[in-house]
């Protein structure tokens, strides 16, 4: 079953004075559980809008979006918040940690919002922080950590609720190439453990870490390709698979 299923999704922004901008045009994508997908595109292509829709931060103007089999296109703010909380782990370019809180509290945050009791969430947060190699830094504030460490806190936070997808928006954009590579290796490991990862980037070499690259231009899918492990393009991603998947959903 596809964990992400977009069917003819449109997103139109009203800019006032009857000027409309169509950021997404009839986008249909299916992403299976365990996939590692990169969404690429130049700025202004609509990839950020697509990411916001996939991340349930925004709703499509028209079209259908099924997240893990649930229709989220018509949900209200609070229902979307719940989906973001339980189903999606965000990793941002600028890390987006709460500056006044230490690493532990930052990682705990999604559990606070899902109502997990304090002792349990402490334990879980500690475990995930150990997993990302920051077991000795749990009481450090973000400004006491290096860029790579901050991004690892963010990844720990993304993982804490065991989400259906990890949505990484330019995760290496604010890191030097060596630290960026470390993060990409880390994501690779997460993929191997079975996590579904969606990577949004405009860097070709970053996108090549993924197994499938979806290119967006002018709000439309330009190409959707599977790639081999060595980074070579294998074959166009089966377009019929998308439509078949969308037709078969409840």
């Amino acid at each position, binding site marked *: 079953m596809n964990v992400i299923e977009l069917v003819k999704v449109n997103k139109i922004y009203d800019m006032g004075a009857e000027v409309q901008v169509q950021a997404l045009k009839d986008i249909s994508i299916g992403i299976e559980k365990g996939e590692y997908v990169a969404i690429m595109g130049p700025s202004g292509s609509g990839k950020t809008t697509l990411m*916001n829709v996939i*991340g349930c*931060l*925004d709703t499509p103007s028209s079209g259908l979006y099924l997240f893990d089999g649930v229709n989220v296109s018509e949900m209200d*703010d*609070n229902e979307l*918040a*719940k989906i*973001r*909380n*339980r189903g999606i782990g*965000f990793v*941002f370019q600028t890390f*987006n*940690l*709460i*500056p*006044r*809180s230490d690493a532990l509290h930052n990682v705990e*945050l*999604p559990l*606070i*919002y*899902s*109502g997990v009791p304090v002792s349990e969430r402490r334990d879980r947060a500690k475990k995930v922080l150990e997993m990302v190699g920051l077991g000795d830094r749990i009481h450090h504030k973000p400004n006491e950590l290096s860029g790579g460490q901050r991004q690892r806190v963010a990844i720990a*936070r993304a993982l804490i609720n065991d989400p259906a997808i990890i949505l990484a928006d330019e995760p290496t954009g604010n890191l030097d190439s060596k630290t960026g590579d470390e993060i990409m290796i880390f994501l690779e490991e997460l993929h191997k453990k079975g996590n579904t990862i969606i990577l949004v980037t405009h860097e070709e070499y970053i996108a090549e870490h993924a197994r499938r690259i979806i290119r967006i231009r002018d709000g439309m899918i330009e190409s959707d390709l599977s790639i081999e492990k060595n980074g070579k393009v294998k074959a166009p991603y089966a377009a019929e698979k998308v439509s078949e998947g969308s037709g078969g959903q409840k």
Partner: protein
Amino acid sequence: MTFGAEFKEGFKLSLAALMANKARAVLTMLGIIIGIISVTMMGAAIEGLTRAFNNSISAIGADVLYIQKWPWMSGDEWWKYRNRRNIKPEYADIVKKEARLAAAVAPTVARIGTVKYQNKVASSVFVEGTTADYAYVTNMSFDEGRFFTAVESRGDRPLVVLGGDVANQLFPNQNPDGKIIQINGLSFRVIGVRSKQGSFLGMFSLDNQVMIPLGQFERIYGTHFQATINVRVVNQKEMDNAKEELRGIMRKIRGLSPYQEDDFSINQQDMLTNAFNKIAGIIGAVGIFVTALSLFVGGIGIMNIMFVSVTERTKEIGIRKALGARRQTILVQFLIESTLICLAGGLVGLGISYPLSMLVDKFLPTSMPISLAILGIMISLAVGVISGIIPALRASKLDPVEALRYE
């Protein structure tokens, strides 16, 4: 997420946010502190005044009518009454004989005089001449001894009953009973000390008095003084009827024709109470309005700073929303923050105004009952919620995409 957990988390977050901006929190709080101090001090002053008045007014007696030349609370019309004939003490005998609804009747005349015992002097003492019935009219109680009897009073014996203050002044270390004192050079034997009545509105003492038989008073000061006929009514419910009865008796005594207006006044405690309530009500309303303005300004300060706080933390709100914070979670967080500022301000304000009210009480009757303190806390809570609600709503409605983009 349950409301309890939401509240707890919001509380922790708010506390952390306030701690991160201590100076700002304290300055914002200052507005509320000043507001709460002024509101509670105003309340305490009105409360104190009312209590002092109620204590004082009981000395006048709710079931006593006073026949006098002047009406109480005559205001600007005093000149209308100045040509009235004097009220004479002898009227008391006629009233006593004729008034069915009178339980006790006594005339009083008074002057300021000087009282001496050996080398001790009490000056500016209120010297009252009256009859034995005065003890019944006023329901008098005694620390020492008794009042003069009807026989003693009619015989105008040189006896005196002291007010508490005079007794303390002349006899600091001994029992005054039976001692001989001088009033304006004439000798009187002390037969009793009246129980203390306190002061009138905290301004002058009601115990700085001595009481002597009417005839003795006239011997010292003469007969040309205004008298008051004090009439205790059998039943407080009969006050109006008794007043009418007295009016008829007085008109007869004065020989007034049906076309002439009363040339006397029948006063009662109600008149003072009503006048006081009116004045206290106006002072209270104006005072509370003015002081509430300062609290209002404080509330605006809170609202302003909460808007700043929301704007500053737009990014943080975006992050929290992305991670699953619902609208009400954000709303509660900011509401708690504004309420905390106000509550802390209210508590500090009370912490200052409570001892302050006790200090002021030394000069002016002031009293802060616990209900006023609780009201002060409720008010500061309400200000916190009211001034915080709009910024908090704005925060809760932020679009997560926009908020995350905010730098």
